[in-house]
């Protein structure tokens, strides 16, 4: 997909009208993720019920790709088990780095799969993976709410 098309068809909607850019009640995990070199800065909050992610939200600022990517990600992981979410993060980051290319794996990412072409934009890889990286870190033993 061409970059402009990617913005118009996918990224803008999530960037300008995000669904999950909000605070959630009583989050169990909160973690900030930053790309210092470009200023992308998000704080991700998740609520868990046992092993299941039951709610999620984020706040912050940054480029459209970083913000849209985290919005799509929250869409994907709410309702999933922790280890499923971690596995999806691996798939997403693999896809963006061009290491995961088989359709079946990528389809599991649903809408987030639309960012596959960021793999051809090395300068924007960091933006696309920020949310996923932050989520993976927090679920793998990141930041408990005090």
């Amino acid at each position: 997909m061409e970059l402009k098309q990617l913005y118009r068809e996918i990224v803008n909607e999530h960037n300008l009208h995000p669904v999950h850019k909000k605070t959630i009640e009583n989050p169990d995990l909160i973690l900030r993720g930053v790309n210092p070199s470009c200023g992308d800065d998000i704080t991700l909050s998740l609520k868990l019920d046992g092993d299941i992610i039951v709610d999620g939200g984020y706040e912050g600022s940054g480029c459209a790709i970083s913000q849209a990517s985290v919005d799509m990600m929250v869409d994907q992981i709410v309702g999933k088990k922790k280890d499923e979410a971690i596995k999806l993060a691996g798939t997403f980051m693999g896809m963006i780095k061009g290491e995961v290319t088989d359709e079946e794996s990528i389809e599991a990412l649903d809408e987030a799969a639309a960012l596959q072409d960021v793999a051809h934009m090395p300068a924007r890889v960091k933006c696309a993976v920020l949310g996923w990286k932050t989520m993976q870190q927090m679920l793998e033993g990141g930041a408990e709410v005090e």
Partner: protein
Amino acid sequence: MSTLSEFRKDFEIFDSGEYVYFDNAATSQRPKQVMEAVSEFYRTVNANPLRGLYDWSMEATARYEGARKTVADFIGGASTEEIIFTRNTTESLNLVAYSYGMANVQEGDEIVITVMEHHSNMLPWQMVAKKKGAKLVYLEPTMDGTLTKEEYESKITDKTKIVAIGHVSNVFGVTNPVKEITAYAHSKGAVVVIDGAQSTPHMKVDVKDLDCDFFAFSGHKMLAPMGIGVLYGKRAILDKMDPFLTGGEMIEYVTREDATYAELPHKFEAGTVNAGDAVGLAEAIKYLQKVGFEAIEAQELKLTTLLMEGLKKLPYIKVFGSEDPAKHCGIVTFVMDGVHPHDLSSVLNDDKVCVRAGHHCAQPLMQFIGAGSTARASVYFYNTEEEVKIFLEKLSKVREVMGYGA
């Protein structure tokens, strides 16, 4: 004008006509004469300079030292002992910080820099201040980038040991009053270091007239290859400084326990030197002199004026720095309402327009102007009015791509 379009033909990277390159403040393009000079050095006289006693090595030495003479003359008649070849401005400034700063700054002393500095002229001084227990004092400009007399006269004091200041800001494009600041700093007994990375490609520099103690610049922003830079230092000061790096060809005598160092400037040029690119830098200087700084400045002013007038017509664009195009040195930094500079730069790239986006290695300045990140278009003499028009036209469509109506 016609001569400028002739000069442009020497830059083969523009032959395809595909790209508008407006990131000249990051690095310039190189004319074929420069690349040919480097190639010719390696094809015809290559040998390790300063060492061999045979023809090629002696010729390589002559070319390398000839390049030093060209540089010395170019910046106002310095002597060749005062010209040290480095990799770039960053290395030049680190040389001064480590070799002069660490030896001469003591606890309680002050180092004065500005909040506009590139990280290259900030981090070395942060390091010296931290290690020596000295205080780092920041000069702050007005919002249009002006350093006032009151500001520098109130902050440069008897405690100041070093004043390190950018000649031209890589964000505002403003030319700082470095000559006046140097005179004032000298009256307080401080040594003055000027970062000339953004000025040397665009204006006549005269280190004797500025009377600064150190002046650093890079070849790659002024048509020369990447990896060759210069540090000018006053001989009396360089003489007293210890080497920055030690090793080959910077020695006189070496025993198992001790060494005496070579004379200036070789004392500061340890290891095999970058002679090929020094020759390239000399060729770049000759090229710039052929174009002439008058023509360079006139073209940059014409393009900057056109650029700023065009940006003014876009109500969602905010330009930083002075409203006067003459005070931008070809650099126009801006933000677009609602669009992150990285998205802006990516969308422009889709139209083959190259601009920089980010913090421009000046994070404290970004904090000072209240922007996390900005976009920057920077022109050089080989850019054209046509390119400015293309840039403005493509830029005017970015917001639509980003979902803000038409």
